[in-house]
């Protein structure tokens, strides 16, 4: 790598922010969706590892906002605002939402990947954040890493190699 930055890691149902030359990464996305919100000019990016579409599904006393699409996206916008990013400048790249297993049963929980993708899109639209590129669906796990210096989202899969979107 050219940059001397660190890799900021984001766990499952977690979120964080990175500034160039650092990059930000989350590993092993299956049905979960990785949502990158970035501002080209200030070279700062946030990454959310969304696990569920909607916090109304949550039955915990305290909510981990990063876990859900509807709470994770506004929480990330707020964090980026604290870093001085103006929300109207934000762009998004998303990846994940795979269906890791093929079932004959059509239970709704089995469609969690596609539902996560739909919810992420719905809430990005609600906050008027355009999606610049995406790599969603399919049935492969993904590890993604965003570089705020180049605005490229690197996607690694086991069977289909590596690409940037």
């Amino acid at each position, binding site marked *: 790598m050219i940059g001397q930055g660190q890799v900021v890691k984001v*766990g*499952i*149902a*977690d979120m964080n922010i990175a500034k160039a030359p650092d990059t930000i990464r989350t*590993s*092993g*996305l*299956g*049905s*979960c969706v990785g949502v990158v919100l970035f501002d080209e000019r200030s070279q700062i990016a946030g990454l959310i590892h969304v*696990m*569920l579409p909607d916090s109304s*599904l*949550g*039955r*915990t*006393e305290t909510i*981990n906002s990063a*876990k859900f699409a509807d709470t994770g996206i506004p929480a990330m916008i707020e964090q980026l605002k604290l870093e001085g990013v103006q929300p109207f400048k934000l762009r998004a790249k998303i990846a994940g939402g*795979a269906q*890791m*297993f*093929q*079932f*004959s*049963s059509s239970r709704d*929980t089995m469609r*969690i990947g596609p539902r996560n993708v739909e919810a992420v899109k719905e809430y990005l639209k609600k906050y008027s954040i355009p999606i610049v590129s995406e790599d969603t669906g399919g*049935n*492969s*796990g*993904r*590890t993604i890493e965003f570089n705020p210096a180049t605005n490229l989202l690197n996607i690694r899969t*086991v*069977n289909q190699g590596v690409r940037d979107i």
Partner: protein
Amino acid sequence: MYEKNITSMHLDVLKEIGNIGAAHAATALSTLLNKKIDMKVPKVEMVSFDEMMDLAGGPESVVAGIYLRIEGDVTGSMFFVLPVEQANRFIQRLIHDESFDFQVGEVSEIGASAMQELGNILSGSYLSALSDFTGLKIYPTVPALSVDMVGAIISFGLVEVSHVSDYVIVIDTALNEEDVPNVESVKGHFFLLPNPESFQAIFNALGVQ
């Protein structure tokens, strides 16, 4: 939150469940492969989702994973995961085809179905032992197979739990193949992830308050 009510005695009970289930599965695997299979003492832990990935070898390690749902008096998810090299060796031995390889893009149908059948037999013997021991009705669904990053596979089983908690109680039993050099030895795992509402059923069945 359900995790507050679990004591160390409860964890011991769950450990025993892992012991009984996995012992039966290990015996079935020994018979199938005509190999001595060693089973480790099960670990029962309450872990964060990220720690769960680490238990399984880190989110990016490539495994052959068998997933099935459990229905009946107890609900939850069950995984049997094997590092892909070991899954290859098992399947090669089972179907008498030295060239079988999960890593090649197109997995042969016979190999994939042998792996599913392996999962079926092992999880079936695990769960029927558990059912006999507790007297609970436990119905496994048909297993599904995925060869991919373990994080992507396991997170699927965490979806249900994630509705109620950021932690999961995992009953983890590791398997080892005897008489092979340590580096090559099997690092297979059974992960049993009961849904939170099922713990009470398990404890009641075993007369634990």
